[in-house]
């Protein structure tokens, strides 16, 4: 526990070394430094986790961060069940992705290779700071840091303008959310004089209902930006411009779960604000359905997975909105496993196809890249909710908790689950089944990925399948080990036990039947030789993402640009520049007039002397 400061410190050191010495480090060395620091952090996190499991939590304060008047903010880490769990997820999956990246990015030259690992380490550092912080301010430092690293990594191949725009879009949308978060923190500081979790949650009774409503709403706005909920989700699909391991780490396993972490951490506040909770549940539900519907007809491997991420995040927020906080965290964990697996698998496919990402050009890869295929299959089964995979257990738990809250939400969420199965099976079949639809050179180039890429895939596949077995549903004789572990920190909103488990068996049966039907249907439609990927009618609307980007462009971007143009042309050029230039012109004019005094005429000088004397006399006589 005393070495907890090493957990974020080591990645920071990795960032500094790889960043400062990137021109002189070899590729293998920067890869070892980058991955080694994360491995060390993981080992320490593991030790801490077992200490916490035995019951030892702590808040360790290092130094005074801000000490102004009555505001005291310490740089302190809070090690408890929730943060130690997240530490494991971040460092564990982070390490696997670092190892994967050493092979995936091997075509870059060593300077850019080291830059990549520096950014990745900086990201892990920020994320660790976020989950370890003992007050909202330290969390916000990490919060902003991950947003920054997201920008840096999405725009990694900075020579491409489109990628830069995607990076800017991600950062700006994150920032909008950050504003909400910051306002909430200010509000808390104003009302309670502290931002430490322990003190805030102990003094919650000092806040009025309006305070709690406002604070939770603003915190949720922050979560919307970071975790890609409606309306701030459009950056995530565009963020696929970055390298695939980046998409796996940041946009599947860690950064986007920061919003979930923050809400779970503040569960005391949120449980007292039922209106906000309802809003969270509704937005989670709409996001889930909207993103799922868009994913049905996307033709780019990574875009399907991106929309899938947005949709799964909707599930997590739905769980949070009905009060099932530990279930939300459980889904975070299982989602991290199978989504990272799916993204890394997609990277392996892209690597085998020599850079091609369009699934209409793939097909029949099952025999050519078997390890990738098999792990991808396991990941697909997990996300679709095949019985006893981790995804099945966590998703069913969410659905059962939703049922106890509102039956309509339950049916809609179940429909969303069927959509998930549909688009994932479609992706799997179009990519790996049927016959190859690409070019001849691509076909010759097809080969299985190297060990550094396949071993993380295998590890993640094992976790995707078995990771949920720590909390089997009660009907299969499982104990709520996970929820019990988080119990001291996360107080679930109680629904009656009976209604939570009422739909267990019907849900199970419906899932099996649904999956079987969908498999049959997608196999018939997509296990084909030719697939052009063109859509008409309503499918076209879905394939074009409901034109949301275009709507945002028309409603928000163009007016802001028009306002900016107005200010530039009218205010800046005429008024401000006019003022500054006018001063110059006035000085010029004045000096020209005064120069006329120097006529050289003696008479004029004498006249001026006389006038001066007269003025002095007058002042002397009349004003003294």
């Amino acid at each position, binding site marked *: 526990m005393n070495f907890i400061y090493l957990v974020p410190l080591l990645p920071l050191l990795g960032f500094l070394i790889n960043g400062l010495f990137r021109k002189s480090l070899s590729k293998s060395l920067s890869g070892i430094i980058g991955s080694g620091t994360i491995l060390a952090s993981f080992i320490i996190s593991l030790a801490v986790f077992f200490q916490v499991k035995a019951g030892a939590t702590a808040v360790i304060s290092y130094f005074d961060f801000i000490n102004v008047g009555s505001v005291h903010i310490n740089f302190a880490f809070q090690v408890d069940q929730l943060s130690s769990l997240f530490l494991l997820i971040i460092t564990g999956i982070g390490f696997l992705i670092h190892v994967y990246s050493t092979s995936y990015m091997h075509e870059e030259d060593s300077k850019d290779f080291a830059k990549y690992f520096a950014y990745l380490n900086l990201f892990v550092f920020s994320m660790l700071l976020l989950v370890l912080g003992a007050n909202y301010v330290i969390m916000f430092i990490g919060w902003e840091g991950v947003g920054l690293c997201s920008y840096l990594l999405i725009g990694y191949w900075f020579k491409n303008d489109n990628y830069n725009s995607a990076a800017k879009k991600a950062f700006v949308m994150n920032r909008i959310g950050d504003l909400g978060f910051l306002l909430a923190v200010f509000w808390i500081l104003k009302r309670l004089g502290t931002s430490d979790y322990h003190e805030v949650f102990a003094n919650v009774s000092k806040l009025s209902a309006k305070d709690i409503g406002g604070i939770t709403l603003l915190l949720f706005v922050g979560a919307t930006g970071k975790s890609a909920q409606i309306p701030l989700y459009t950056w995530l699909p565009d963020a696929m411009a970055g390298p695939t391991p980046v998409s796996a780490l940041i946009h599947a396993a860690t950064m986007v779960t920061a919003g979930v972490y923050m809400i779970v951490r503040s569960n005391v506040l949120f449980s007292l604000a039922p209106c906000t909770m309802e809003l969270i549940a509704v937005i989670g539900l709409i996001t889930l359905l909207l993103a799922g519907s868009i994913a049905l007809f996307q033709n780019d491997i990574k875009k399907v997975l991106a929309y899938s991420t947005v949709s799964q995040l909707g599930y997590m927020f739905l769980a949070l909105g009905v009060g099932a906080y530990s279930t939300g965290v459980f889904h975070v964990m299982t989602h991290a496993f199978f989504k990272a697996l799916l993204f890394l698998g997609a990277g392996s496919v892209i690597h085998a196809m020599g850079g091609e990402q369009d699934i209409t050009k793939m097909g029949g890869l099952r025999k050519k890249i078997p390890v990738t295929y098999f792990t991808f299959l396991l990941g697909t089964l997990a996300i679709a909710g095949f019985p006893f995979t981790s995804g099945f257990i966590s998703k069913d738990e969410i659905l059962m908790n939703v049922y106890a809250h509102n039956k309509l939400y339950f049916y809609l969420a179940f429909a969303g689950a069927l959509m998930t199965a549909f688009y994932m099976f479609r992706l799997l079949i179009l990519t790996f089944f049927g016959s190859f639809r690409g070019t001849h050179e691509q076909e010759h180039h097809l080969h299985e990925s190297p060990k550094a890429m396949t071993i993380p895939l295998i590890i993640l596949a094992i976790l995707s399948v078995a990771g949920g077995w720590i909390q089997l549903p009660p009907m299969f004789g499982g104990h709520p080990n996970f929820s019990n572990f988080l119990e001291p920190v996360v107080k679930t909103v109680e629904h009656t036990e009976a209604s939570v488990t009422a739909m267990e068996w019907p849900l199970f049966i419906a899932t099996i039947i649904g999956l079987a039907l969908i498999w049959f249907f997608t196999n018939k439609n997509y296990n084909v030789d030719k697939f052009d990927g063109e859509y008409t009618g309503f499918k076209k609307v879905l394939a074009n993402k409901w034109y949301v980007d275009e709507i945002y462009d028309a409603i928000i971007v163009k007016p802001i640009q028009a306002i900016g143009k107005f200010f530039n042309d009218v205010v800046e050029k005429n008024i401000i520049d006019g003022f500054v230039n006018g001063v110059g012109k006035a000085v010029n004019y004045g000096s020209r007039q005064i120069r006329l005094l120097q*006529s050289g005429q003696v008479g004029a000088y004498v*006249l001026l002397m*006389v006038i001066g004397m007269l003025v002095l006399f007058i002042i002397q006589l009349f004003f003294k």
Partner: protein
Amino acid sequence: MEISNYIILATALFSIGVIGVLTRRNSIIIFMCVELMLNAANLLLVAFSQMHNFKLGKYYPTLASDAQVFVFFIMVVAAAEVSVGLAIIVMLYRNTHSVDVNFLNRLKN
């Protein structure tokens, strides 16, 4: 005689001198106007000295005769100034062959 008469006369002479300095183009005339101004001041000094010399209706010639002595100083200064000034005018004439003040615009710009 009222003192105001002398004051008005001196003021009138002084103003004429000032206007002459400002208006005339011939530098010698300007000099004469300067002399006129000096003499106006002299007049004032003497007038006031005489005013102070009358106490209780009687005339005491040495009571306040400082001003009358000062007048001689002014005249001496005027004479010295005239000599220097005329010397300058002679040099001016040698350079520009005229005594017109308007030709002295070498200080222009």
